[in-house]
């Protein structure tokens, strides 16, 4: 199978102004959003409290908001994860300037408050009676509780472990006591637990608390990492090829990063560590195509001495075109797999990668060589 039966003869270079205009438009729109709305910084960068919670029953965002509102957490940001009964609850504490220590304490208080707010009245009552919540207490806590009920140390630890294992298999929530004995918890202990514990209809999957200082550090570090990576690319290409190749490569790359950032802004995607990782991966990956083209260009410049630069550039692009399309396509497929099946944790990463892969191969084809055409005079002079 072939993408092109014969070597294609597209004229890419003479369309360079359309390509520059299209990219410019996207980036300008992104810039506009950046200046007017800014990024939606995740807690990694802004600091704050993020609780991920999973419910046993169908629950709507409104219901969660109502429950939180009763505990004075009405302005928490609630996001449903995909189509599942899972939610991210993000709470900020915006009450003025505070020391880091105070702020951390406030965040911790918020996290506890969120947990408390999600309990039903009956569950709250059970908690007050000193009952233990099998869906939210930790392995250690369950074991300690069983020991305090006169269960031997070994049995207590074994049962706690099995209960946690059940939670893992049931994606977090045990809904029925009958599964306990099936999983090998002793009858006596299972009976005792039915009496002395309860099964809340939700479980806290994760709690993340990030102080404000960390975020500030991280923003600076992320920006620096991107810039250094770009400089690293520039130096390497300049070393392996020539400076102007390096410069075109970097411009193409910067374009890819800016387009990816613009799309993050278009979709108001949360800026998380994963998103930064995706951007850096784009920096490393999308230069691949460009190098392949440059490599071919260098070869052709030696053979096709009589042709004009534009012809050579087009020729090099066409020769590598099916390769450029096909490899981007395989990476696109795998990123698509991450996007579709990889789960919410990695969703943002996959989205940015998708944009980056497409932007990367578009810019390689329409821009990397076009920049060399722009600097034609200097470029050809240097060659001699």
């Amino acid at each position, binding site marked *: *199978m072939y993408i092109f039966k014969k*070597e294609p003869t597209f004229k890419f270079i003479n369309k360079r102004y359309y390509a520059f205009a299209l990219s410019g438009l996207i980036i300008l729109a992104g810039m506009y959003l950046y200046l007017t709305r800014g990024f939606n910084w995740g807690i990694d960068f802004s600091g704050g409290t993020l609780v*991920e919670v999973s419910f046993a029953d169908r629950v709507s965002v409104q219901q969660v908001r109502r429950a939180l509102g009763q505990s004075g957490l009405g302005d928490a940001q609630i996001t449903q994860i995909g189509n599942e009964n899972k939610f991210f609850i993000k709470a900020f504490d915006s009450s003025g300037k505070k020391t*880091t220590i105070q702020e*951390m304490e406030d965040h*911790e208080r918020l996290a506890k408050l969120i947990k408390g707010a999600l309990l039903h009245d009956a569950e709250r009552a059970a908690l007050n009676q000193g009952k233990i919540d099998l869906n939210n207490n*930790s*392995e*250690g806590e369950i074991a300690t509780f069983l020991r305090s009920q006169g269960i031997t140390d070994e049995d207590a630890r074994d049962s706690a472990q099995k209960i946690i294992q059940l*939670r*893992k298999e049931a*994606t977090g929530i045990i809904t029925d006591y009958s599964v306990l004995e099936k999983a090998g918890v002793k009858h006596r202990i299972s009976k005792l637990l039915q009496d002395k514990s309860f099964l809340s209809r939700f479980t806290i*999957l*994760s709690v993340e*608390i*990030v*102080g404000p*200082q*960390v975020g500030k*550090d991280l923003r600076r*570090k*992320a920006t620096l*990492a991107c810039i*250094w*990576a770009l400089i*690293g*690319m520039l130096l*390497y290409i300049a070393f392996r090829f020539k400076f102007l190749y390096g410069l075109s490569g970097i411009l193409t790359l910067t374009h890819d990063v800016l387009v990816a950032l613009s799309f993050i802004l278009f979709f108001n995607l949360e800026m998380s*560590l*994963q998103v930064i*990782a995706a951007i*850096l*991966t784009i*920096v*490393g990956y999308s*230069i*691949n*195509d460009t*190098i392949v083209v440059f*490599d071919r260009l260098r070869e052709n410049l030696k053979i096709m001495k009589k042709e004009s630069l534009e012809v050579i550039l087009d020729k090099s692009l066409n*020769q*590598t075109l099916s*390769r450029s399309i*096909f*490899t981007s396509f*395989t*990476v696109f*497929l*795998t990123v*698509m*797999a*991450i996007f*579709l*099946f*990889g*789960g919410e*944790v*990695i969703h943002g*990463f996959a989205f940015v*990668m998708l944009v980056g892969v497409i932007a990367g191969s578009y810019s390689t084809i329409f821009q990397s060589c076009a920049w060399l055409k722009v600097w034609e005079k200097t470029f050809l002079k240097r060659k001699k």
Partner: protein
Amino acid sequence: MNKSLSWKIILIAAVIVFSVVMFYPPKDKINLGLDLKGGMHLILQVITDDAVRLNADTQVGQLKSQLKDASIKHDNVLRKAETTIEISGTLLEDERKIKDILDDDFRDWTYSFAGTYISMKLRPNIEKQLRDQSVDQALETIRNRVDEFGVSEPTIQKEGFSEDKILVELPGVDNPDRVKNLIQSTALLEFKAVVSGPFASEEGALKEYNGKLPEDLQIVKTNPRRMDNGYYVLKSAAVVTGKDLKSSRRSQDNYGAPAVGFSFKSGGADSFEKFTAANIGKRLSIVLDERIESVATIEDVISYDGIIRGRFTVDEVDDIVLVLRSGALPARIKYLEERTIGPSLGADSIRKGVTASIGGLLLVVLFMLAYYKGAGINSVLALLLNMVILMGILAYFKATLTVPGIAGIILSIGMAVDANVLIFERIREELATGKSPKSAIDAGFKKAFWTIFDSNLTTVIAAVFLFQFGTGPIKGFAVTLIIGIVASMFTAIFVSRVIFDLTYGSRKKLTKISI
């Protein structure tokens, strides 16, 4: 089959065996990150200012007693900031004598005379040393506590390139409050002289000094868990600190009543001996985290060993011993970041990661087979081998697999075939120019090599920056990406060549290859 080919096959077989041995069974051999296993991730900061201040306070105490011993007239010795001390009200004719003392016993400080004032400044290298030491010591103390708590395979290390941040990762721990208290009960331990007290309130204490506390004194609250609620006025400068303590244990006084026994290191012992000798009958307080744990009357000169006695029960003594032992931290600690990941979230992430990996792999395999037919099989074999090597290296370096790390693996599936595609496309081109299949394969591999090398190296460069920037999960991503790329260069360039040679090499007359 020629000789060099059989060596190549042996090498490949060895790599496969090595990798499989390394990562099989994956359940035990692959190190899962916190986001997959569940647990706690803490980043804390050592307030190194504490250590510097503490040092200055101790030096103030020593300086005072030396000036007194040498009967040099002075009004006061004060710590002005973390790293500056001021001696005031000295006489000009004492300059020589003071210089001698400062030159002999306070070499960590630079000083300058200005009339009746002498200001001393801590040397910057000593300051840095103190700060570094306090972080190292904090690291060690936290490690001991976590060990005592019984967490398996904890990570406790300095965070990144920062000088005062510590990363603590505790797999399988999901009751944050208990652990955090355990680590934070850390605290700063100081022995301070009691000036007066107890008072019922801070205002009451202030009244004693007509509402204005002298600069070298401070009012400190008692720890209500250990003694009656109240306030004492203490000398700000600590006599000795947790840094000077060698050990503490349960002990008894002369009448057999429970008491807290402690021993100092030699430096601390000297200071403590001088202090206690000069202050028999006076009171001494033990301050932990700026709360008074105990106030005792000095009954004897104490140097290396001593006891704190009072109306303790055995349990109370044990508590104090525990506080003394675990209190031996040079500075306070604050939390900057805490993440608790429950066990079920990680299990879910693994399920999804596996689904996505298989999905991605299948899609790529399908397209490679459809597009390159026979050569497609070649690349699929290379791809599978790539996965095996990746897992093997991951296990060999005991690298940690994280959620983004899984994404890195999937991504490297897509990128690994890139090298194959480059080679195959080149072979196709060479075939199109009318070359024989054999020389087309040769030329294809040769010409594609540097292209593959260059393009992969740039990805590695970016991944290295990512590694040094990122926290745990992101580091995991960078690592799998780098390993994946290196493995793919081996499989695409070396292994897939061998497969070509195996398939076509033995044929006398090769007229057509499937690509």
